[in-house]
């Protein structure tokens, strides 16, 4: 703040703007997905827990919390697959959830994308070969992006979804 007069003014405005703000500056944006170009900065997400241990859900919850605040990049959770552009899936797909996952995917209007979140969604993780596990998400629905980690950090989830919104 070299120019005193203007510096005080700008500083004050910045201070007002950031007063009470808990959202932290985000890290890097993930790689842009060419399939997501049509979404033009708006991504509505429907989440399906296909058999996860709920570790990933806690991290996804964090991604939508005030601190990581993914909504500022145009991502919103919605209540129906009909409203969604992106299906986020966690966990190894269990036998009982396979058809539900497929139905949720089919219920989405085109264009539709799938993001597999966590190691289990990628390759069944520690549950690989377990009883009642049907396979990784890509065995049931086509996967467009993956977020590795057990569980992945909120930053990674934010980065991946920012790759879809392009913002």
């Amino acid at each position, binding site marked *: 703040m070299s120019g005193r007069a203007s510096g005080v003014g700008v500083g004050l405005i910045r201070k007002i703007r950031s007063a009470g*703000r808990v959202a932290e500056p985000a890290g890097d944006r993930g790689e842009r997905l060419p399939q997501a170009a049509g979404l*033009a900065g*708006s991504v509505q997400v429907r989440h399906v827990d296909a058999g996860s241990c709920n570790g990933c859900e806690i991290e996804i919850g964090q991604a939508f919390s005030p601190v990581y605040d993914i909504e500022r990049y*145009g991502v919103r959770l919605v*209540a129906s697959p009909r409203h969604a552009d992106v299906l986020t899936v966690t966990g190894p797909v269990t036998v009982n959830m396979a058809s539900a996952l497929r139905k949720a995917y089919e219920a989405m209007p085109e264009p539709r994308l799938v993001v597999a979140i966590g190691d289990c969604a990628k390759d069944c993780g520690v549950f690989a070969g377990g009883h009642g596990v049907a396979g990784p998400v890509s065995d049931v629905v086509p996967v467009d992006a993956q977020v590795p980690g057990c569980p992945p950090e909120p930053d990674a989830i934010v980065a991946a979804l920012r790759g879809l919104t392009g913002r």
Partner: protein
Amino acid sequence: MTPWLVAVAQAALLALAAPLVVGVTRAVPARLAGRAGGRIAQPWRDLCKQLRKQPTSPADASMFFVAAPAVMMATSLIVAATGPFIAATSLFGGADLIVVVGLLLLGTVALALAGLDTGTAFGGMGASRAMVIAALVEPTLLLAVFALSFRVGSTDLSRIVAAGATEPARVFTPASLLAAAALAIATLAETGRIPVDNPATHLELTMVHEAMVLEYSGRDLALVEWAAALRLSILLGLLANLFAPWGVATSLDPMWLAVGAAVFIGKVCGLAALLSAGEVWTAKLRLFRVPELLAGSFFLGLLAVLASAILA
């Protein structure tokens, strides 16, 4: 400048601004929660994307499901075109209060029938709740504005607004405060805001408006959400212009129209910010407590009409 042009311009302005008003109602609570929040223009991005996406119809649905979004949008657009928002001149003989309430109700009915048409439990549930709320809200809307109508002697909204702007002493009585309170509650209920309905809920059992639109996608969803945004702007605009009619253009002079448009946008955004800030401190009512609130607002409206009729 012909009245036609003004009407089209007014509809276009409201249609363009409505998603931004929704953006304001999302940005304010986000800021109060310590978030950075989405951009104010984010609802516009959502709309543009949804318009390009593929619409789906449930297998058992009929024409009612397909037609509802267009009907809802059309009724909202007609109200936006003829209402006293920027200019309180009698465009096409004016926007009649009863016609406006009827048109808004027609949109609600179209959507409720669409909800029932899907054949899902949630669709029927949302339709049932929305209609019960509408049944109690529409009379309140009518009564609240009738309190002003009695003073002006006309149900023409433009005349009421113009009379309020030029001779406030004749139009506004203490009863107007009651009417304003009744209209404010009716607006909350009609636009599906807290404490009547939570627009951000993901839990189907608590939904009202959202439950009816769960089956919509693509351009149908875009139209429904756009129309809902437009209705929010319309009702906030009516609330603002009926009870604070200053700044509304009373002639078709381009300069006054520009001023009217600017003041209108300011008023609506201000009210939207106030409304959404209030939501942060309010909990949603249990569904079966909502009628008590609405009955209360109905009686406020009735008192307002009685008071203004007796004081006349």
